[in-house]
């Protein structure tokens, strides 16, 4: 009986630690975005931002999906360099959204590449909420 308890406790602890790592980074960012003026975050709004098409410098229409593919559980491909991008959905790629610094680094780069400006705290929070639900 005691052994069973230990086993159960171990399983629960493991489960908690694996989900906690995913949420620590994103919770930290949600809190930061709020402190920067964002209100609540909404996955539906995030989806609209993610799929919004804008004209790129080269003239073709672009959105996040241009490189990340329209199926988030699949690999994407960079439209210029051809670099393969691992799936964004945390359900198939557990490494996603576990590192706040990395998330911020790519938000900064990619918003600038697609929209020629940085994303607002509100946009970033909504996108993050949307991606976390995948």
């Amino acid at each position, binding site marked *: 009986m005691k052994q069973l308890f230990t086993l159960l406790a171990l399983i629960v602890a493991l489960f908690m630690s694996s989900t906690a790592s995913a949420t620590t980074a994103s919770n930290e960012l949600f809190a930061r975005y709020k402190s920067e003026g964002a209100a609540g975050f909404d996955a539906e709004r995030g989806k609209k931002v993610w799929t919004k098409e804008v004209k790129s410098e080269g003239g073709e229409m672009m959105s996040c999906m241009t490189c990340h593919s329209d199926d988030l559980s699949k690999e994407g491909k960079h439209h210029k*360099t051809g670099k393969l991008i691992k799936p964004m959905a945390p359900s198939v790629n557990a490494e996603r959204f576990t590192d706040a610094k990395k998330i911020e680094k790519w938000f*900064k780069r990619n918003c600038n590449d697609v929209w020629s400006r940085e994303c607002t705290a509100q946009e970033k929070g909504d996108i993050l909420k949307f991606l976390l639900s995948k």
Partner: protein
Amino acid sequence: MMKQTNFRAALLAAALLLGSGSALAEDNFWLWLVNFSRQKEVKPVDNKAYQEECGSCHFAYPPGLLPAKSWAKLLDEKALESHFGESATLDKDTLKEIYDYAMANSAEKSWYKRSRKIALATEEGDAPLRITEVRYIKRKHHDIPEKMIKGNKDVKSLSYCNACHTKADKGIFDNDTVSIPNYPDWD
């Protein structure tokens, strides 16, 4: 006369002793001079941040492939906002580590043979921003037909070193390690 011969013999013995440790190699001019197993190639990347940050988008080109003046231009905070058309911005600490690593291991600071040649080829004139602009690199690839590089769907450009140089990640670029995709018979 005898004394001089002895002295020479002693010098040679000392040189052989020093040169036998290849781990010591290439760190400075004197070790390079007495090293009999000279490093023929390019020093492979041995910095984690450099490997990870540069390598997350493209082949992490060893710093010994360009002179310091080129790295200074490329790894500038402002310049990275449009790095060959893409934003490659980094936080200050990471950028400093990568910048310092590239500067310390640039072509003219290295005693590896290919780096010496690149240093020589870029000594004068403007700093090249692309490795493919370096005279030595151009000359080395001069006689490869265009269809094997640009016209080759699995290569596409000279910039993808590791498409053909199978040991590029180890800093090895000699002919024996080249394998051009779709052209197995090329020599």
